[in-house]
């Protein structure tokens, strides 16, 4: 087993939950209680070895240039974790990592990572609590060590069958499929615990399902693809109808609660443009437009979202994309406080369409607003060329 595989088992990823939208199978779970704080396992045990490895990984994460070292954002996330995790609060360290992908992960030693791609996509504090609660569910259930032990036994099983050629390959696939089933059960348990935790902390549990529903809309927006190709475990997730029914029962069992939308939007505001810029650079145009359609619907007066959608459409340039991009740029500008790059985007489209006067005006406006921009000399050359 190589280091990377070992590490991936050590961190139980939230992304694995995408197919496991499967929520708890029953309405309530009265027997479950938060376990007592964990003692550090003996280093000679397999769990102790996993902790030691995660400690080294945590050191790397802590020093990573991708780690966002903003005390306010960090304390905010940690505060939610503590409200959910109760007595375990001192054992958990949170790291907000700069990465445009939707993901969060929890290691058995108490290291939790939350990626910025996830934070861009959530609508309120309750949704963030749902993800954090789910990750705590893995931690409280010590799923990492279960998966490690399961993988070790399956690895031996698969290697045994591997010596028998094609027949052996079938055996290996069966072993892998078994691992997915094992993981899905973990996800169900983590879902249940996460819902319990967020409900007890006073959050509206109905927000939990919205996180995954929103993500599914994005994944389904990809051309010629379906979610099962995004993640192999999607193939076996429970049908949508079943999920809706399960969700309805759960919401009935845990009614009410707050979302704290305004608090969340205020906390993420300083990062909004940076995270949107990362999203644009993902070059997953269809998914980005699906995401931005939702964000614009949620926050129609926020120019950053309109600008981002315009940029994605300008870069994609299909059919009516450029006309729609112009509309979005103009709408963003009319709202006030739009990114200066809105004028650059407009100027570039007009330049491509040989509408030189409009192009020069908008590109000039961009340079006025961003005189030190790294592409300033190039933009100036565009303007000069159009004068000739």
């Amino acid at each position: 087993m190589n280091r990377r595989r070992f590490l991936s088992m050590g961190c139980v990823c939230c992304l694995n939950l995408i197919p496991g939208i499967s929520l708890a199978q029953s309405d309530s779970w009265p027997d479950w209680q938060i376990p007592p704080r964990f003692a550090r396992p003996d280093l000679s045990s397999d769990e102790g070895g996993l902790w030691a490895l995660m400690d080294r990984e945590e050191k790397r994460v802590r020093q990573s240039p991708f780690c966002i070292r903003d005390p306010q954002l960090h304390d905010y996330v940690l505060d939610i974790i503590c409200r959910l995790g109760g007595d375990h609060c001192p054992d958990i360290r949170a790291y907000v990592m700069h990465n445009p992908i939707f993901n969060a992960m929890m290691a058995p030693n108490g290291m939790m990572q939350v990626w910025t791609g996830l934070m861009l996509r959530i609508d309120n504090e309750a949704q963030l609590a749902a993800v954090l609660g789910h990750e705590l569910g893995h931690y409280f259930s010590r799923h990492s060590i279960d998966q490690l032990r399961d993988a070790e036994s399956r690895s031996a099983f698969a290697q045994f069958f591997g010596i028998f050629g094609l027949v052996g390959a079938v055996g290996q696939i069966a072993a892998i499929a078994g691992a997915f089933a094992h993981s899905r059960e973990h996800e169900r348990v983590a879902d249940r615990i996460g819902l319990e935790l967020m409900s007890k902390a006073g959050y509206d549990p109905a927000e939990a399902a919205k996180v995954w529903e929103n993500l599914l809309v994005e994944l389904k927006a990809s051309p010629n693809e379906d979610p099962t190709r995004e993640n192999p475990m999607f193939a076996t997730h429970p049908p949508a109808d079943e999920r809706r029914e399960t969700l309805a029962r759960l919401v009935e069992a845990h009614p009410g609660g707050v979302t704290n939308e305004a608090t969340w939007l205020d906390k993420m505001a300083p990062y909004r443009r940076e995270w949107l810029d990362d999203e644009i650079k993902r070059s997953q145009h269809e998914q980005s437009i699906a995401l931005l359609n939702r964000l614009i619907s949620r926050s129609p007066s926020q120019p950053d979202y309109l600008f981002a959608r315009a940029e994605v459409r300008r870069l994609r340039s299909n059919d009516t994309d450029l006309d729609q991009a112009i509309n979005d740029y103009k709408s963003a500008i009319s709202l006030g406080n739009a990114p200066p790059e809105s004028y650059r985007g407009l100027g570039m489209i007009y330049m491509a369409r040989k509408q030189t006067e409009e192009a020069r005006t908008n590109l000039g406006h961009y340079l006025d607003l961003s005189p030190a921009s790294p592409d300033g000399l190039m933009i100036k050359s565009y303007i000069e060329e159009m004068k000739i």
Partner: protein
Amino acid sequence: MKRLLIILLMGGLVSCASVGKVETGENTLGERMTVNLDGAWNQIKAPGLGPAQIWTMEGLPIDQLLIYTGLKDGEAITSKNSASGGKMKNLDFRASMTPDEIVSLFEGMLTRDGSSFKLLKLEPANFGGLKKGFHFEFSLIRKVDNTQLLGMGYGAVSQGELFAMLYQAPRLSFFPRYRGKVEQIALSARIKQI
């Protein structure tokens, strides 16, 4: 199964890779481009590496010089097989692209694995004997090992084809060491009109 196939493919590539020497003096690259070198470089050769020639002084992954010698409209700037993690971005070159759009393509290629790219400079420049070329500089934090790199590039579109050079190396030692050599290659580049 798909991952297994990719692993087998990558394993196959590694086993087929070879390193050749690019000699000092004038070298013809592709059908329309020549460069004049004041020192030898190493060239990595392997099937499926993509449309660019890959040169290096210190060896991959320390430093890397990609050279595009006439990428046609609609062709991707990197091999579809070389996507690392996640899905393949749309990285197709279009002849109508402006320099900033071409730089965005390179940015997309360099950030497929989650690396962080920051444009430091983009300006008009002569390249390959063409006046309508461009030059850009960037910084990159490589995701796989958190190494901080600096990079530079030159490019021009001639008769609908992209000619470009893209160099990157760790910022503290290797980039300053080879920056002059790369600039010399860019200055020597000539693109034939047909």
